[in-house]
């Protein structure tokens, strides 16, 4: 069975400093991995996705993530935090392509707080 573990439930950074949100995954297959962001009272927005191409994935708003198979990790980073980055972030794993059913399994989320 597939799963993701987000290692921090809350992360607090100062504006202009780097962001690191940690995620480890477990999958029997070569996984598809995603990061989604959810702002208060908003829907989920895709930040980036990994689907077995380049291991360093660049997303929107300056975010990127690196897939490390040896460490089963898919950490999300951003060089410089902005106040607008404050939100809930979800690491997500998808079942392999093909076959019937292709659900997304979400982590428990990391609440990012950005302080002045």
């Amino acid at each position, binding site marked *: 069975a597939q799963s993701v573990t987000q290692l921090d439930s809350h992360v607090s950074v100062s504006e202009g400093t780097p962001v690191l949100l940690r995620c480890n995954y477990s999958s029997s297959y070569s996984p*598809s991995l*995603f990061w*989604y962001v959810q702002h208060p009272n*908003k*829907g*989920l*927005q*895709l930040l980036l*996705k990994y*689907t077995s191409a380049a291991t360093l994935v660049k997303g929107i708003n300056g975010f990127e993530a690196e897939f490390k198979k040896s460490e089963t990790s898919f950490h999300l980073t951003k060089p410089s935090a902005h106040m607008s980055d404050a939100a809930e972030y*979800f690491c997500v794993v*998808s*079942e*392999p*392509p*093909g076959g*019937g*059913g*292709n*659900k*997304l*399994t*979400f*982590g*428990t*989320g990391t609440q990012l707080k950005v302080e002045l």
Partner: protein
Amino acid sequence: DAGVTQSPTHLIKTRGQHVTLRCSPISGHKSVSWYQQVLGQGPQFIFQYYEKEERGRGNFPDRFSARQFPNYSSELNVNALLLGDSALYLCASSLATSGQARGFGPGTRLTVT
């Protein structure tokens, strides 16, 4: 192009009642999935439909059911509502069932009293 749309945005129901939530996918998307997000938790998979057929079901009781229509829109039905069904219900669409990113709708906030 419009994104995923859901209706209603908010809903208040009483225990034991029935509810129907609706979702319209992004134009051209043939797969619709439903997720339940309880406050403070990540979304949990309920159903996936593709070409009007159920392609996946999460660990939810039979009180939960869904269907997809020829225009690829979808309904999620919940019978005999319990207090624990209070949650944000999210609909997501994608082109197909393979490992693709989903576009998510804003959700329907269901409160059961």
